[in-house]
């Protein structure tokens, strides 16, 4: 059969295949350049950028869990200035499609980041991280007040960022909510071009010998294959009520995992901490998705989005 088309369009961003990487699991792209040609990805999503560099949380920051890991990095990043000056040239030179993940302390900070990235050519699309569980006061065990936990605030933040940029805008949502459809619809109403879900699930790990929490932040965000069924279900929930596309992520390790997200309604997917285990995981996912299309006689991968069979 003819080569299947893997091209998709994610809320105004043309991607040569539906696979990007989850912010924070792929650095700024160049880190993985010695394992494979990162321009083969549908897009490179960079580590969260803030206006100022952030030192992040105190160690220990990671803890292994069954088929996954907890992290409480705290958005350690170089800041937008260093990104534009030192990190961006590599991605542009490689001709990568770039999704910049942004993090701010207020809607205005997000708007400023969006404006600067658009003006200085620092991104082809933006992903606003309204859902990091490891900043603010994550020691509040009632759950930190994430923007993504309040549909009203999601809408306000989205509107403010939307007004500041014409780049495709994705809102990254948290699974730590009772009903994912509410923040997803709020993002859509606010003018988002897509929603990205899920961020990590809040979790906790305890060393019973020392009786201490395994993370200095006490709680952290759970990722890895362990969370995949939760993520697929949330994509399924959100995609059915939205008119905008979904960028699905959470525990993708193989092409079959990624196909599950498409069938549940995602238009594109992000490979996350699988890259830590297998630096070329995202590339293998792309290859496997192509093979799946050939095996199933699918000429255009877009036909898989929402193609779940219920009968």
């Amino acid at each position, binding site marked *: 059969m003819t080569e299947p088309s893997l091209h998709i369009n994610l809320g105004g961003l043309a991607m040569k295949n539906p696979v990007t990487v989850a912010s*924070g*699991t*792929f*650095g700024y792209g160049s*880190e*993985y350049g*010695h*394992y494979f040609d990162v321009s083969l990805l549908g897009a490179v999503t960079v580590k969260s950028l803030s206006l100022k*560099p952030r*030192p*992040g949380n*105190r*160690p*220990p*920051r*990671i*803890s*292994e*869990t*069954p*088929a*996954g*890991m907890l*992290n409480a*990095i705290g958005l*350690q990043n*170089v*800041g937008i200035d260093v990104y534009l000056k030192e990190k961006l040239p590599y991605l542009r030179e490689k001709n990568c499609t770039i999704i910049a993940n942004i993090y701010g302390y207020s809607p205005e900070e997000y708007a400023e980041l969006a404006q600067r990235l658009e003006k200085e050519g620092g991104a082809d699309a933006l992903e606003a991280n309204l859902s990091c569980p490891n900043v603010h006061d994550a020691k509040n065990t009632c759950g930190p007040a994430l923007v993504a936990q309040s549909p009203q605030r999601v809408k306000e933040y989205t509107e403010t960022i939307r007004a500041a940029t014409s780049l495709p805008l994705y809102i990254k949502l948290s699974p730590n909510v009772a009903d994912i459809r509410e923040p997803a619809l709020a993002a859509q109403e606010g003018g988002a071009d897509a929603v990205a879900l899920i961020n990590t699930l809040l979790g906790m790990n305890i*060393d019973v010998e020392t009786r201490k929490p395994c993370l200095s932040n006490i709680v952290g965000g759970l990722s*890895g*294959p362990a969370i995949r069924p939760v993520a697929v279900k949330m994509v399924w929930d959100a995609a059915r009520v939205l008119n905008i596309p979904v960028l699905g992520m959470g525990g993708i*390790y193989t092409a079959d995992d990624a196909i599950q997200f498409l069938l549940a309604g995602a238009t594109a997917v992000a490979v996350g*901490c699988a*890259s*830590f*285990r297998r*630096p*070329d995981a995202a590339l293998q996912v792309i290859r496997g998705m192509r093979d799946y299309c050939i095996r199933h006689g699918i000429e255009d991968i877009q036909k898989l989005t929402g193609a779940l069979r219920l009968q």
Partner: protein
Amino acid sequence: MIHLLDCKVLSNDEVAPGHRRLVLDGKAIAEDTCAGQFCMLESSPGLQPFLRRPMSIERFGGDSFSVLYKIVGEGTRLLGRIQPGDTVNVQGPLGNGFSIPKEFKRYILVGGGIGIAPLPGLAQALIRETGTPPEVILAARSRDILLCQEDFTRMNCPVFLVTDDGSAGMHGFASNALEARKPDKNTLVYTCGPMIMMGAVHRICMENGSRCQASLEANMACGDGVCMGCVVETTLQEEFRRMVRVCHEGPVFDSRDIRWNTGTPAHD
């Protein structure tokens, strides 16, 4: 250059109770390794454990390289069952190894427990660079887990043993043995072992005007500078140097840059 290779297991023998040496066929990694670098090993082809295990590269050269490990958790228990002829996926060599400045008159290696692993390779490099075998302090809880002793004696290194329980050599800690060797301002100490031991070694070095390079251990997810999970706190003032990655800026640091009263627990 960093490689991602399926390596054939040549041997996986017990070297002391609960400690093994895994020898792997991997010319590319063996050729590109410098003393003090590490690799990330898959302890299982499945998803459990999910993360690779960071391990110091012990011996390297020719077509093969080895790692020394202590069985403490699920990952190392699975590694312990690997048989010759099996394959293990390895990413490496990673990180910055030891550096060998020539201006010192004495070089002392201080290894504690399984932390001895990168030091025979360093001794070899020191002999090559300086022409003199370095002094070696080998520390362990008890005599049966004093590792690599024969490697150092074969290289004609003066070896000083110290055990917590006094079952071999001096009765005490690595830092006591170092103090007894009277390091001075012309001494460069290299150390690898438990954080508490390296902190004490650092203190002895500072008291005697010696310099010290310490090879740190940390839990890691990626091993390659991406996840920001393995950071340690530094004494450096610049905002974004307050936390440095053991995998990327390290694992070997000038001991003065590390904030020794905090640290990360050892990996299983």
